[in-house]
């Protein structure tokens, strides 16, 4: 159906978006690459005007050999993976529940999606102070009520706490997408399977889950992109202490706390590489699901 004319028109119409994004990707990327090969310590008077010293791969070697590097990669993967698993599992359960006939469905749905509207800084502050505070937090009151010793969440279960906070924020998104997918499921097919004597579990695994494949793919893809660069939740709660330093946070420490732009830029390049490895990995598993 596409004519030659519409093809060239299509190209023109795509141009603004493509050119803008290309610029948005290339300009910072080139600057980051340049900085990553230089000694750039603004606190010691280095600046672009005065010229930056070329140091080759020194920054890359130093970033990689730092004792903080591999733990931070591990923390990043555990955090992203943890949030994905929690939001997907609970998202599917919640979507199936909300698909049932219930009274006040609209209100329940509003309650469930509300966390998605809360800005990350605020949700981190609310969880840290109102929920997880070891003295005045709701959890500590709850623990004491049941006669248990309150938990110092952000200290003794720091990574778990951050995964909890991020999951709370992203569960609504997963639930909504999974819910729309479930609603499109052919109920006759399910009924037929029920009549054939399929157990609820096998109905779930052979009919519901395959149907959700595409939705799961999309939730995974979008959340991974956002979770890899998670920042406010860590900055506000633990400041990277107690094993919650992700790769993003490590770069933040190098760039802001240590004011070592070269080293931080090298870290940024590593982060891009990691993100792309994760992305390729994701595409492999889910790519065919996207058509």
């Amino acid at each position: 159906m596409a004519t030659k004319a519409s093809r060239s028109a299509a190209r023109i119409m795509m141009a603004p978006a493509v050119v803008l994004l290309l610029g948005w990707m290339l300009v910072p990327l080139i600057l980051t690459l340049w900085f990553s090969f230089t000694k750039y310590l603004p606190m010691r008077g280095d600046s672009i005007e005065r010229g930056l010293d070329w140091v080759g791969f020194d920054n890359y070697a130093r970033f990689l050999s730092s004792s903080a590097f591999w733990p931070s990669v591990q923390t990043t993967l555990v955090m992203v993976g943890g949030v994905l698993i929690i939001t997907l599992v609970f998202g599917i359960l919640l979507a199936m529940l909300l698909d049932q006939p219930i009274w006040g469905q609209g209100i329940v749905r509003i309650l469930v999606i509300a966390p998605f509207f809360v800005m990350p800084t605020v949700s981190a502050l609310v969880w840290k102070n109102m929920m997880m505070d070891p003295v005045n937090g709701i959890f500590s009151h709850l623990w004491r009520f049941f006669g248990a010793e309150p938990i110092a969440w952000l200290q003794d279960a720091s990574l778990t706490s951050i995964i909890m906070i991020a999951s709370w924020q992203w569960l609504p998104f997963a639930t909504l997408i999974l819910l729309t997918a479930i609603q499109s499921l052919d109920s006759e097919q399910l009924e037929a399977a029920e009549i054939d004597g399929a157990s609820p579990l096998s109905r779930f695994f052979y009919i519901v889950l395959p149907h959700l494949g595409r939705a799961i793919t999309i939730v995974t893809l979008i959340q991974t992109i956002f979770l890899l660069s998670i920042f406010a939740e860590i900055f506000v709660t633990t400041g990277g202490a107690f094993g919650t330093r992700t790769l993003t946070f490590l770069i933040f420490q190098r760039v802001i706390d240590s004011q070592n732009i070269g080293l931080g830029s090298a870290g940024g390049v590593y982060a891009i590489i990691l993100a792309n490895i994760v992305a390729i990995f994701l595409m492999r598993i889910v790519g065919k699901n996207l058509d």
Partner: protein
Amino acid sequence: MARMTSTRRKIITTAVAWAIGLVIFFPIFWTILTSFKTEAQAINDPPLFFNFDWTLENYISVQERSDYLRFLWNSVAIAGGSTLLGTLIAIPAAWSMAFVPSVRTKDILLWMLSTKMLPAVGVLYPISLIFVQFNLLDTKLGLIVVLMLINLPIIVWMLYTYFREIPGEILEAARMDGAKLRQELFYVLTPMAIPGIASTLLLNFILAWNEAFWTLNLTAAKAAPLTAFIASYSSPEGLFFAKLSAASTMAIAPILILGWFSQKQLVRGLTFGAVK
């Protein structure tokens, strides 16, 4: 008999769903509740639920310290501006991807998404330097452009999936009638895509509203949105639970209300083409 069981089942599912909904909503509820307490009541042991004297003093003292409406206006302008601009740029792109697909369409789409993987902190310096060069620091325009670029891939993708749902026959029929490309876009396609565009706008407005890294680092006073507003309340000296709650409530209330009004729209539209 069947009705009996189904009613009982409905009671159980209702109870479970409500319980879960309330648990998920609790942190927000508790924050809003605490914002009406005094600082002493906010840390009372045991926690007070409704048996306290409601007060507005936290809101008053927050407003005295910072001009809430200015931050709110900046948030509205930046989130709204970036969403509108992004949608304007994305509609033609998504249109051509959906109706004139080529072998590379999927690759372009995934490449666009991959631009979101550059970690913001890693490019803070490059972006700041560029902003200094172009005098964009602390301007709404600068933030509108940055947030537009950040969200553009998502906008393109969402619109692309909606446009693909539109049956091609309709377009062909329009072409038979001699519709020009521009007419095709405005009179045939856009009306059909309105629900999709609306939910795209909504989602991106929310994402832009909640963006807290660039909005904080590229602004000072004139263009500072609510994310900067909340940064001045996060850990002041002394007791601060109630004031923090009030400031938090003020920061999230507008978007929460907007979200609630439009939740049907959002729910209907938020599929990313996931349904098929």
